[in-house]
């Protein structure tokens, strides 16, 4: 297990290199001169040329890449063109919001997805199942921005229960109660993913419940609830765990939209704004961080998979 983990972590290196090349090339293909955008409409061509030189953008692209990579290896992701601050600290500023948002979202996904999925499977074919399956289908198909706007309309504007936008740090006044700013965004983000988990839990539990060993469990005289949880759900969990890796990927892209809708100072919104500002160093840095996170999450999913299914051996 330890050896496997080390191997997988080493395998991160070539993947990251490939990802960094792709990211570097992609953003240089986007039309628009960062120096011109930064200086605005009133800038003279001389000013633009000077800034271009200062930012090193007049060098050949391979040289720019080599320079950037060299710095990254030393832990320096460069300096934001827009904020004039190190990229790491720019990302760090957004990290609190995004990490808290992701954690709360995962909490909702597990809280709603798994119990409702189990309920739907055990009440298979009844009105309970039809209601939950129908609801899951609805939430899986609703676009995130639409749901976000409606939640704001109902719970912020209408009922006034939760704030509609922004997020003061939990280290500011209010402390943990500031988390209420993240309730609507995390629910928005959780809805389609929880719906997916509901459907997946239901489908894999129904699959497992037709297996022979479940009949054996019933023949032992176990209570149906015990059969459902200990035998059926426990086996269904193997398929569900695999899905959490994909869920994370979905969260990253949906967070971009959600953070924009709720004006949250998170990494998702940072990416969008950085692209509009042609702030190359920030875009490269954020994407690199996301790639690393994504790979680590998938490694964790694989490790969990091996823990859940004794037939899987990690080599």
């Amino acid at each position, binding site marked *: 297990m330890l050896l496997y983990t080390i191997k997988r972590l080493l395998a991160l290196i070539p993947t990251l290199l490939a990802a960094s090349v792709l990211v570097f090339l992609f953003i240089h293909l986007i039309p628009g001169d960062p120096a011109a955008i930064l200086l605005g409409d009133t800038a003279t061509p001389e000013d633009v040329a000077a800034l271009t030189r200062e930012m090193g953008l007049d060098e050949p692209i391979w040289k720019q890449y080599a320079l950037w990579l060299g710095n990254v290896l030393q832990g320096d992701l460069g300096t934001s063109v827009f904020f004039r601050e190190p990229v790491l600290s720019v990302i760090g500023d957004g990290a609190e919001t995004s990490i808290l948002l992701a954690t709360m979202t995962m909490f909702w996904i597990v809280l709603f997805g798994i119990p409702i999925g189990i309920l739907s499977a055990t009440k298979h074919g009844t009105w309970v199942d039809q209601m939950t399956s129908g609801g899951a289908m609805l939430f899986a198909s609703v676009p995130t921005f639409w749901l976000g706007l409606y939640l704001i309309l109902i719970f912020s504007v209408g009922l006034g229960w939760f704030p509609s936008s922004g997020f003061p740090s939990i280290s500011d006044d209010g402390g943990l109660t500031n988390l209420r700013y993240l309730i609507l965004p995390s629910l928005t983000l959780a809805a389609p993913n929880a719906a997916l988990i509901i459907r997946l839990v239901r489908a894999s539990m129904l699959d497992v419940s037709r*297996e*022979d*060993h479940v*009949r*054996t*469990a*019933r*023949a*032992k*005289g*176990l*209570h149906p609830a015990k059969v459902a949880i200990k*035998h059926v759900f*426990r*086996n269904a969990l*193997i398929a569900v765990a695999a899905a959490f890796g994909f869920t994370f990927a979905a969260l990253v892209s949906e967070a971009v939209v959600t953070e924009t809708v709720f004006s949250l100072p998170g990494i998702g919104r940072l990416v969008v704004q950085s692209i509009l500002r042609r702030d190359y160093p920030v875009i490269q840095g954020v994407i690199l961080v996301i790639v690393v996170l994504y790979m680590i999450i998938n490694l964790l999913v694989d490790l969990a998979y091996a823990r*859940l*299914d*004794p*037939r899987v051996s990690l080599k």
Partner: protein
Amino acid sequence: MALLEVKDLEIAVAAGGALLPVVRGVSFSVDENETLGIVGESGCGKSLTSLAIMGLLEGSQLRLTGGSISFDGRELNSLSPNERRAIMGDQMAMIFQEPMTSLNPVYRIGDQIVETIRQHRDMSKRQASDRAVELLDLVRIPEPARRIDSFPHQMSGGQRQRVMIAMALACDPKLLIADEPTTALDVTVQKEVLDLMADLQTRMGTAIVLISHDLGVIAETCDKVAVMYRGKIVEAASAAALFANISHPYTRGLLNSIPVVDHDVEWLEAIPGRVPTIDETLPGCAFHPRCSMAEIRCSAEDPAPHDVATGHTVRCHFAGKGTV
């Protein structure tokens, strides 16, 4: 009074609002220390009968539509689900056809045996685990103390079936139902498993209902035999009486289709045709389209049970009138 008494058992499958009968008026009894063999082709209703006795029809398309099952003096169909579950796995246990898939792949076999024990006995984990080692030893799993920590995928089919037997015996059941326990196993392993069951029966006095499509297996292990065809028992007798005087053409057909090793045969005899599907309506004797002796009467009139000797009942118009 017999330990298990099944009377006029009727099972139907719910299909599109209609109930199609699959087991019709099956009756038999089993005493302590006795083995009843139920034999027939696939689809004759033998497995459904065993699932009905065990109480495992619930949650499927199958419905118990009539008859009674009395076990140890209690009518099982009148018990509450809780009372029923208290018997399942304790006084009555079952072994299934598919040893490869009948154990839960994510739990150690020891834990699966312990689960059965602790469901019905007030034992600590430690005690139950010791008992599991004993049981594995009883079913002749080598190094049982080490093997209780194995996962099912680390064992062979024969070993898994032994584990299933150990699990079934965990609470010293009065009745053991074995549904094709050896069908999925190699011939050599088959023999070992059957011997093991016979041995355990002599030690513990367990009653056994053995379901098989193999008349050879039945002949070797059973005291009583019931031959089923299309949901009905067509011939029933003690094993000795049945094999001495086979009286139903279907039983004869089953016996003839067993290859004889020391004879040089070119053709393996088979019963022509197939078992009619459940939605086919068939007037007269259900076997008549496949029967070499069938006459006009057979296609019109369903034969009533007829005693050819004491305790030897046959459903055939020709029963007792010459050899089949």
